[in-house]
Structure formats: C-alpha cells, structure tokens
C-alpha cells in the first residue's frame, strides 16, 4: 500500500524536535493551574477543566499525532485539534481574566493598554479572524505551501503555530468570555461564524473533488488519502461549528437574563390595585 512513503518520511518525526512543542504546552498548563490556585476570589473549576482539556488536545496534536503529519489524514487531524478544538477549550477558560485577577498592577495596566489598542481591535474583529483561520487553511491547501511544509520543519511548525493562533483569535472574537473592548454585536459574530464555517465546508468538498491535483507540488500524492482527509475536515468542521455556535449563543442567552429581581415585583402591583380599583377604574390601566 502507500504506507512505505509516509513511514520512510516520518523518520525525523519520532526524533527529538517534535517533542519540543510539548514544553510550552506543559508551561501553559502549569502556569494556569498556579494562577487558578492563587486567585483570591476562587476560580471557577469548569474554566480550569476547559483549559486542561485544551492543553490535552494540544499534547495529542503535537505528540502522538506528530509522526503522522506527513499523511494527509494525520495533517488534517492535527489541523482539527490545533486550529479548532484546542483553541475553543483554551478560549472558554478565560485566561486573560484570570491573569487580570492574579497579576501585579503594572502587568494589569499593560494588559489593559493592549486590549484598548486599535490594532488589536482590527485584528480581533470576527471578520479578520475568520479570514485568518479559514483563509490560512485555504492558503495551505491550495498553494505549494503544503508541499513546502512537508520538506522544511521550520515552516511545518510555523503552519501549526498559525493554525493555533488564528483558531484562538477566531474563537475569542466570536464567543470568548475574556474582555474584548469594541467587540461587534451578535449579528456580525453570527455572520463571521457562518462565513468561516461555509468556507471550511466548501474548501473540504473542493479538496475532495480535486484530490488528484490539489495540494500542488507534492512528490508522491495519494488522492485516496486526501479524499478521506477532506471528509474528516468536513465533519470535524461541523463539530467545531456546533460547539462554537453553542458557546456564542450561551453568551447571548446569559446577556439577556432578566436583571430585575423576580420576587419584589408583584408587590407594588397588588398595592396599586388595592388602592386604585375602588376609586377609579382608569388607574388600573397603569398598573
């Protein structure tokens, strides 16, 4: 079968360099745990769990899956974990909020300055973020970038870093609980999610249709593997879209929670009725 190609190629995958990305992940997980313990007001355990799930998905993506990344299916699984599922776990963990709680004042001030920066608002606009994440994937799959990343390890890691950063940016801009000054309203965010998901689905089917020629510049192309990778991409995209939509509408649902206290409300109505109805029927209309 086709196993000989990827296996011969994967020799460098099992050696040292691929384990290098594990260290930052361990650092991220440890740092967050330390901060959550030190939070004076007590940090929500669900957020911590979400962060750890995100980190675990990153570990799976850069650890056990790394030797498979020359296979299109392995590459696609990495893309799903690094660019879509792990960022959602990390974003829902609200790391910036946690940092603002435990960091010393100078750090907090500089975070505040960063969050108010014009450039960040532009970068973190849902439309920009959607373009970066889905557009970046299109760039990898439709240009010789995929073939080049197979040959150069540095480019390979850069592509993965881009998946993660763009996915994080998108999840944050669409549904993140962290502070995001000047974040656009629900309609714009739903529109960005729709556009990104539709682009992802179309890209997946296009890859399936053109699997014979598509990632250009490959030496030993395997169309059948690319077709199953495209299916994985399609259904994985669905799953992520579903999760992101749930996160997005949950924030909307919480923001519409009735603010008024439910208990004391009926009382004034009764009082007004008692005093108003015997005298004048017209007053009851105002109650």
């Amino acid at each position, binding site marked *: 079968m086709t196993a000989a190609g990827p296996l011969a190629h994967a020799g460098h995958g099992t050696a040292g360099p691929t384990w290098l990305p594990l260290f930052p992940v361990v650092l991220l997980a440890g740092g967050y745990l330390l901060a959550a313990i030190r939070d004076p007001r007590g940090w929500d355990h669900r957020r911590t769990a979400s962060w750890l799930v995100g980190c675990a998905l990153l570990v799976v993506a850069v650890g056990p899956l790394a030797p498979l990344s020359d296979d299109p299916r392995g590459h696609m699984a990495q893309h799903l974990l690094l660019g879509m599922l792990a960022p959602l776990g990390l974003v829902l963990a609200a790391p910036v909020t946690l940092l603002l709680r435990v960091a010393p004042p100078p750090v907090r001030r500089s975070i505040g300055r960063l969050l108010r920066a014009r450039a960040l608002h532009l970068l973190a606009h849902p439309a920009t973020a959607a373009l970066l994440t889905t557009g970046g994937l299109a760039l990898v799959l439709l240009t010789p970038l995929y073939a080049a990343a197979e040959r150069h390890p540095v480019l390979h890691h850069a592509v993965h870093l881009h998946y993660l950063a763009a996915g994080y940016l998108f999840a944050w801009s669409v549904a993140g609980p962290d502070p995001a000054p000047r974040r656009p309203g629900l309609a714009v965010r739903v529109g960005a999610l729709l556009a990104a998901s539709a682009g992802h689905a179309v890209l997946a*089917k296009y890859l399936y*249709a053109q699997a014979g020629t598509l990632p250009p510049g490959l030496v030993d192309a395997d169309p059948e593997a690319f077709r199953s990778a495209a299916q994985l991409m399609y259904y994985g995209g669905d799953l992520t*879209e*579903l999760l992101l939509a749930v996160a997005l509408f949950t924030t909307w649902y919480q923001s519409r929670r009735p603010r008024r206290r439910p208990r004391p409300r009926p009382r004034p109505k009764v009082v007004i009725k008692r005093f108003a109805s015997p005298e004048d029927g017209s007053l009851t209309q105002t109650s």
Partner: protein
Amino acid sequence: MVDARLPGAPTTDLRSSTLAGVLIGVAIMAAVDEIVFHQLLAWHHFYDRSTPSVALLSDGLLHAAEVIALVGGFFWFADLRRRAALSSRLAWGGFLLGAGAFQLFDGLVDHKVLRLHQIRYGVHLVPYDVVWNVAGAVLLLAGVAVLWRARSHRPDAGPR
C-alpha cells in the same frame, strides 16, 4: 411590540414565537435530511463529482447555516420560555411551516435547479421526487393552518 405590552402582565411575543419555531423547523428538517438520507441510508452522497462550483458554494453556506439555525433557534426558544413570552401554538405552527418550506426548497431548488444531488441514485426518480415534494407541501400547509387557527383564536392579540 415587546415594549407596548403592559408591565407586569406576562404577554406572549407572537412574532418571536413564530420565527423561533420556523428557525427550528428549517434546521431540524435540514438535519434530518443530512442524518437520515446522507449518513444512515447513504442515498445522497458526500459529493457526487458532478456538482458545479456555484452549487458547491451555496451548499456549503446552507450547510453552515443549518447548524447555526439549530443552535440559535433553540436558545431563542429557551429565552422566550424563560421570559414567559412563548406561544407554543404559534411555535408549533412555525415549526411545521419551516420544516415544510425547507423540504420543498430542498426538493425544488437544491435537487432540480442547482442539481446539487438527487434523492437517490440509480433508480427511477419521479416517484421519489413526487413523494418528497408532496410531503413538504403537506407540512407547509399544516403549518399555515395551525398559525391561522392560533391567530384567529386570540382576537385580543392586537395588530397581529
């Protein structure tokens, strides 16, 4: 319309109830189509290799919208229920209307105009098309009837 209601008295939000029902109906029918016919029966294909690229684009858009409509519709429904503003009769009417409308749209536009895919391959198509579209029309008309009855049931409902 929401602002015009009397304070204190929980009034149903007629327009939102109907629209939330329509949204859920469209999404459920799209999901049933995807799950039953694409995945379980595998009558439709993932991609039939003859679809033009414009149809591919509209299919992707529709597919993405279906998931968002499903989630958004249910959250909208939950919000209406929480505020005691839901008219379940109108929501059911909207649901039937949306489901029927989507099935008819899928049968006429997707299958016939855009030729995204057919209901089934390698068989005589006409009976399938007739059953599909008649079922969609029946659902649509049932939705219209329920909405009609619900609205004529409450003459005090104001402008609607």
